[in-house]
């Protein structure tokens, strides 16, 4: 696929909170990321889009050191290569993985106290954004519904002061009502913390993302404003393999 405007100037907003420069990831004999470069501005939501298997999740995992990589990744201008995952996260990157990955054998309270030993469920942000979790504090996370588990997964990272959130398919497998709830939470969070969001749900992307980065075959093939992508049905079909009408955006 021809790179549409990957070298276009980045947003003219403030300095990026995160910059990827020529990032490569190899697993065994596979070359998953092949020189990925893009910036994440310090405000709003940046959506990382692309067909299945193009390297979106790997990009997030490479940023927090869960995938072996080469290239440069700068967080607020500081190179984070060589840092452990824990140190990168403590440096201000919150990570919500695909499939939530809550600790099913632990209670909701224990899941949250892993991050905030003093407050856990009692932290104000939990009562404000996830009131349902307060009443379920003693329930094992493995017995929660998918939507509730997603709330636990989101609440865990919001208990820490973050300069950037990496959120991987937060609405995957959720009912439409829950998708709306998650979108509301993300929109609320994005007011104060920039988000790099991997998401297949285009209506949600259109609603909360300011800009998009599109990957194909491990490389950036497009970046720009969300509105521009959504307005161009042919471009969306070419880059993502879906029509706007079928995706529920038109």
């Amino acid at each position, binding site marked *: 696929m021809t790179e549409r405007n990957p070298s276009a100037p980045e947003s003219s907003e403030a300095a990026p909170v995160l910059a990827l420069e020529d990032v490569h990831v190899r697993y065994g004999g596979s070359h998953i990321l092949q020189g990925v470069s893009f910036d994440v501005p310090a405000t709003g939501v940046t959506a990382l889009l692309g067909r299945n298997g193009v390297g979106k999740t790997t990009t997030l995992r490479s940023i927090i050191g869960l995938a072996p990589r080469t290239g440069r990744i700068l967080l607020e201008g500081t190179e984070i290569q060589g840092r452990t995952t824990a140190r990168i996260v403590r440096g201000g990157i919150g990570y919500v993985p695909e499939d939530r990955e809550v600790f099913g054998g632990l209670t909701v309270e224990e899941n949250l106290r892993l*991050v905030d030993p003093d407050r856990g469920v009692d932290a104000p942000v939990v009562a404000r954004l996830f009131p349902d979790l307060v009443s379920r504090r003693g329930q094992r996370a493995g017995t929660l519904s998918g939507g509730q588990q997603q709330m636990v997964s989101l609440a865990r990272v919001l208990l820490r002061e973050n300069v950037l959130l990496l959120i991987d398919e937060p609405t995957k497998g959720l009912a439409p009502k829950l998708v709306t709830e998650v979108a509301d939470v993300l929109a609320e969070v994005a007011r104060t913390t920039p988000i790099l969001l991997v998401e297949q749900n285009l209506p949600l992307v259109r609603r909360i993302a300011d800009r998009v980065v599109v990957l194909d075959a491990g490389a950036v093939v497009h970046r720009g404003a969300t509105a521009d992508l959504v307005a161009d049905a042919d471009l969306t079909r070419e880059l993502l393999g879906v029509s706007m009408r079928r995706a529920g955006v038109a």
Partner: protein
Amino acid sequence: MSDLVLLLVTGLGLGALYFIAASGLSLIYGLMGVLNFAHGVFMTAGAYAAWLTMGALPVGWPVAGRLVVGVLVAVTVGAVVGLVVEVVLIRPLYRHHIQQVLVTVGLALAGVAAAQGIWGADPRPVESPAWMSGTTDVLGARLPNDRFVYLLVAAALFAGLLALLHLTRLGLVIRAGVENRTMVEALGINVHRTFTTVFALGGAAAGLAGVLYSQYAGAVSPAQGGSLLIFAFIVVVIGGMGSLTGTAVAAVVVGLVQQLANYYAASGVGDLSVVLLLALVLLLRPTSLKGATA
């Protein structure tokens, strides 16, 4: 009736030793995925440390007092050996499982050879307090007193580890890490520090097991840790890797089966019956007694 009581108590006592030996192994595997074949060396180190300590203390001290000091030294030595092994040999090899096995097997062989080189291959007798060498009559059975000690120590260790796991932050991190250690790290928790602590804890429990097993055998010998390790591995696999409660249940079952088979079948059949029990569990319930993957 008295025979059965004797067999049950001695079987439980043996199970208690197996639990003490297996608890650290189970925690280490559950959290870190490390099959620590050097765990027997930790036990041997503890046993020799206690033996040397008891020999170095004034003869005028009561044996029980010297044994208590020996146990404390054994636990400390086990913890230090565990900590050093984790930092120096295991930490560079996380996620390299084959290399971990090779290193820990190599350490096990080297540890036995070193002990043989220093103290000889022959068993060295250990002193026991007079009460531990005696018996107590219960329901017509003359029960060896040392089995009560093993049971009490194992119960205290079990309660202590449960309290650690459920009442402390370290325990919370361990329980989360047993489920998904990558995610623990992705929450900003230095899981490697927890690994080191758990390895030291496992080493301490192994040191304790080593000194108690030498009391059970009446001697210390270089290969002692290795023979106890085999049963500890069987207990951990049957109970479910990483499950403390499963390990406790499996240890009791293994101890009882071994003792009953030795008595009702023939001497020596106990060891075989334990291996058959392991095969049976793996065939009928491959997810182990506790449901964890065996």
